[in-house]
C-alpha cells in the first residue's frame, strides 16, 4: 500500500509565559492512500496541532511531515500553500466559509486558484452533490449550520484532493444534521478515493473510520484498527 502521509519524530513546542510548552512530543505514524483515519483525544491533547502540522498549516519544531512524498519542512509558506491548493482539502468545525462570497463562489475559489476550466459548472455539480444546487447564490450568513458545512464539503472536494483533513466536522451541528454531514463526508470520500484524516473527540464518529490514533498530553498513546480496517 502506498503511503500518503508519513510523520516521523514530530514535536511542537511553544513559548508561553517565558517557558517552553511541549504540545506534541515525538509522534510517529504513517497513513496509507485512500484510508480513513481518526485522531482522537481529550481537549488540549494536541490533536488539532497535529492536524495543522500534517496539513502544512504550521511548522514543526522538530521531526518531519511528508505529504504525498513532499517534505513540508523544506517548503516556504507560499510553497506549502501550493501543496494545500493542489493536494489537500479541509473541513472545519466552524465551516470557515468566506463570508463575503456566495456558496457557489466559495466552492469556486480553489478551482479559480488553479486556473481550471469550466469552474462554474463544476462547482455547481459539487453543490448539487451536497444537495445545495439551488442555494449557490446565498451568502454563508443566509445558510444554516448544516448547509454551511455542506458548502464547505463541496469546496473541500472541488480540487479533487488526495487527502482530506476534517477538524471536528460535526462539532457545531445538531445530531440529525451531523449524521447527514458525516454520511456525505464518507460517501464523497469513497467516491473520490481520497484519504481522510478526521480529528474528533466523538468516539462514535471515529469508529466509522478504519483506524484510530489516540493522543494524550501531546503523545501518541494508541494506534489501532477499527472493525472497518
Amino acid at each position, binding site marked *: 500500500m502506498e503511503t500518503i502521509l508519513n510523520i516521523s519524530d514530530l514535536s511542537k513546542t511553544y513559548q508561553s509565559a517565558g517557558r517552553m510548552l511541549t504540545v506534541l512530543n515525538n509522534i510517529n505514524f504513517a497513513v496509507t492512500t485512500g484510508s480513513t483515519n481518526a485522531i482522537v483525544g481529550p481537549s488540549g491533547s494536541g490533536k488539532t496541532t497535529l492536524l495543522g502540522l500534517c496539513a502544512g498549516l504550521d511548522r514543526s519544531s522538530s521531526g518531519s511531515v511528508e505529504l504525498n512524498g513532499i517534505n513540508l519542512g523544506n517548503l516556504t509558506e507560499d510553497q506549502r*500553500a*501550493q501543496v494545500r491548493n*493542489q493536494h489537500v482539502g479541509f473541513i472545519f468545525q466552524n465551516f470557515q466559509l468566506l463570508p*463575503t*462570497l456566495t456558496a457557489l463562489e466559495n466552492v469556486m475559489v480553489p478551482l479559480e*486558484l*488553479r486556473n481550471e476550466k469550466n469552474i462554474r459548472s463544476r462547482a455547481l455539480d459539487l453543490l448539487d452533490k451536497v444537495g445545495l444546487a439551488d442555494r449557490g447564490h446565498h451568502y454563508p450568513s443566509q445558510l444554516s449550520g448544516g448547509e454551511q458545512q455542506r458548502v464547505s464539503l463541496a469546496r473541500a472536494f472541488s480540487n479533487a484532493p488526495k487527502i482530506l483533513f476534517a477538524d471536528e466536522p460535526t462539532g457545531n451541528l445538531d445530531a440529525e444534521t451531523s449524521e447527514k454531514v458525516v454520511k456525505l463526508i464518507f460517501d464523497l470520500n469513497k467516491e473520490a478515493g481520497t484519504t481522510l484524516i478526521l480529528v474528533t473527540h466523538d468516539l462514535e464518529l471515529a469508529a466509522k473510520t478504519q483506524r484510530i490514533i489516540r493522543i494524550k498530553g501531546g503523545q501518541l498513546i494508541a494506534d489501532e484498527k477499527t472493525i472497518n480496517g
Partner: protein
Amino acid sequence: METDSVNYKRKTNIRWLFNMAWRDSRKNRSRLFLFISAIVFGIAALVAIYSFKYNVQNDVNGQAATLIGADLAISGTKPVDGSLKHLIDSLGDERSQERSFASMAYFPKSKGTRLVQIRALRGNFPYYGSIETTPVQAGTAFKKGKMAVVDKTLMLQFNAQVGDSIKVGNTLFLITGILNRAPGQSGAVAGIAPVVYIPMQYLAETGLLKIGSRVSYSFYYKYNKSVNMDRLTKKIDPILDKAGMRYETIESRKESTGRNFGDLSKFLSLVGFVALLLGCVGVASAVHIYVREKIASIAIMRCLGVKASEAFLIYLIQIVGIGLIGSVTGAVLGTAIQHLLPLLFKDFIPFTISVQISWMAIGQGILLGVIISILFALLPLISVRNVSPLNTLRLSFEEVGLSRDPLRWLVYALIGLFIICFTFLQLNSWLGSLFFTLGILIAFLILAVVAWLLTRIMKLLINGSWSYLWRQGFANLYRPNNQTLILMVSIGLSTMFICILFFIQSILIGQVSLSTSGNQSNMILFDIQNSQKDAVASLTRKQGLPVLQQVPIVTLRIEQIRGKTAADLQKDSTIKIQHGVFAYEYRVTFRDSLSESEKITDGTWVGKAESGKDVPVSVEENLAKRANLKVGDKIVFNVQGVQMPAYVSSIRKVNWGKVQTNFQVVFPTGVLEDAPQFQVLLTHVPSNKVSAAFQQAIVRNFPNVSIIDLGLVLSVLNELLSKISYVIRFMSAFSIITGIVVLVASVRISKYQRIQESVLLRTLGASRKQILAITALEYFFLGSLSALTGILIAIGGSWLLAKYSFELPYTVSLLPAMVLFLTISILTVIIGLLNSRGVLNKPPLEILRTNA
C-alpha cells in the same frame, strides 16, 4: 510515490485578484467609503488650490500687459537729468510719466484728511487695460483739467461723491471719478495707501514737491512695432542700475506676479496637505482595524492555497480602488470649491480671476490621493502577508505582528520621504520642508505619546472603588480595539491648527495695539521743512498734544565702503556687500545720544564729531550684516552731491517694533546740521476726534506735511490680517472637516467593536442611561484631553513662532482657547452618542442578528 506533482511556481492570476478584491469588499463597502471619506476633503482642498493656481497662471499670462499697462516701465527715486534724461526721452513710440508720493489729502465737504498716495500722470498711460473708474470715462478725462480720480475706499470713508472736491497741497481738484482699480494694484494694497490720480501739469501748483520729499519717478513706454525687449533691457540695464533706477517689462511683471501668487498658493497647498495628512492618519487606523477583522478570511484563503503576496494584493487593490474613488470625489468637490476662491482672493490679486476646470489640477489631486492613501494603508496592510492559515483552526485570536515586520521601516521611510518631497515642491527649500515635516512629526508624536500615557495611567488608576460606569467608561480608553490613539491625533491636530492660527493673529494685532496704547506716540508728522519746524511743534502744543519726539532727517546714499564702489561690486563678485546697499537712499539723523530703543553691540558711541576728521557714525546691525561692515571700516557718503568720508564707530541693535523714529545710520552732532533736511514729529492723540481736528489744522496750515495716523494704520492692518486669516481659516476648515470625518469614522468603527459588548451589557440588564453614560464619559475624556493637548501644542508652537520668527513678545488670550476646548469636547461627545444610538434604540437580539 508522486513527488513532482506540485506546481510551486503558479502564476498569479491578476484578473482573479481583482475579482476576489471585489467579492471580498462586499458588505464592507459602506465602511470602506467611510474610511476613505477622510481623504476627500484634503484632496478637495488641494485640487481647489491647484485649479485656482493654474487659472491664475493663465490669467497672469493673459493679463500681464494690463498689469503693467505699458511695454516698458522705468522707475526710480531721483529726478532724471543729463545723459539719463536723454536716454529716457529716446525710448518708446509713446511715452507717459508719473510722479507718485505720499501726501495728505483734504476733503473740504467732510473736513476729512488722510494720508494718500498721489499719482500725477502725464500721457496716455495705461496703454493696455485702463484705470478702472466709475464713470468709466473718468479714467482718461481727469487729465484734461484740474480734476482727480479718487480711490473708492477713500470716497467711502469721507462720504465723498463725484463732483465734490479734494485738496492736494495748495490746490483744489474736482473729483471726476471713483477709482476702482489702478493698473496692477490689488485691493489689499489700496487699503493701505489709497490712490488719488491728478494730472501732472498741476503738480507744481500743489507745492508738495519740496526738499526731502520721497518721490517716485515712473516712465511708461509703448512700442508700436514689436521690439526685442530682451536686447533693449540688456542695453539699458547697466545705465539704469548705475542711476539707481529699475525697469519692468510685461515678461518680468508676468514672472513677479506669478511668483508672488505662487508663494501664497504654495502656503495654502501646505494647509490643504495638512488636511490630507490628517485624513491619512484616519485611513491608516481604519485599514488597521479592517485588516484585523479580515484575518479569518485571509487565513481561509491561505488555507485554500492563496499566496501571501496574493492576499496582500487583494487588499491593496481594494485600497487603491477606494482611494481612487475618494480622490475622484475630492477632485470633483475641489473643482466646485474653486469657484469660491476668486471671492476669497479678490483683495490680494490685481486682476480679474477666471474659473475654469483644470484637468492638470484634477489629475495631480487624484494621483496624490491614491499615492498617499496607499502609503498610509500600507502600514497595516503589510501585516496581511503574515497572517497564518493556522488561524482557521485556532479560535483564539493570533495577533498579527506588524511590530516585527522589517518592511514597516521601509513604509515609514517612504511616508517621510513623500512628505518631505511634497513640501519641498511647495516651498522650494529643503530646510523649510524638513522643518515642516519635523513640526508635523513632533505634533503627531506628542499626541501619540499623550494617548499612550493616557492608556497606561488609566490602567494604573482604575480600581474597584470606582463606580461601575466610570470604571467602564475609562477602561474603554485602553481596552483592545480602542480608538484612543486615532482620536487623540485627529482631534488634537485639528484643535492645534485652529488654535495656532488664532494665536498668531492675536499676537500680531496685539503687538500693533500695544505700540499705540498708553502715551506712546500714535501719530507721525513727516516732510516738515526746517523752516516749519518750530511752527508745527507750536501748533501741536496749542492743540494740547505733546511733542514726543522731533528729529531731523537727511537723505543720503552710500558711495564707497572700504574704498569699493557699486561699479567695483559689479566687476568683482568676491566682494561681500549686498547690491542694494549702494542703490538705497538712506534717511539718517544726527544726535548726541542713543535713544531708548537702541543698544550698542560693538564699538563705541560717539555723540559729537570733531571737525576736520572722518565722521564717526553708528550703523544698525542688519545694515552692518548686509554691507559686511565692522567697527573701523571706512564709508564715503553722498549727501545730496557732497562727498562725506566717515567710519563705523559703533554697531547698534534697534528695536524696530517700537513706534518711534529709528534709523539705519545715526550721525553725531556737528556735521549734518546745515545739510538739506526735513523734520519728523511724533505725538500722541487721545481720540479719533482730536486726531481729525489736529490733522485738519496741520493740512490747512502746512499742506506739504504728511501725517501717518497709527490708529488708522492699525485698523487697516487689522482688516488686512482678518482677510488673510479668513483665507487661512477657509483652508484650515478642510482640516477641521477632515478631523470631524475621522472622528465620525473612528467612532463608527469603534461602534462595531463595542456593539457586542453593549448588547451583552443590555442583555445583562444595563439601562439605556447607563450605556449612554459610559459612552459619554469615554468620549468626553477623549475629546477634552485631545483638545487640551492640541491647545498646549499650539501655545508652544505659537510661542516659538513669536519668539524666533516674528521676534515679538508672547501674549495670547486664553478665553477663546477655552471656548474652543469646550466646543471640541462637547462635539466629540455628541458625535460619539449619535453613533451609539443604534445600539441603544433597538432590542439587543435585533442587533445581534444584524451583526452576526
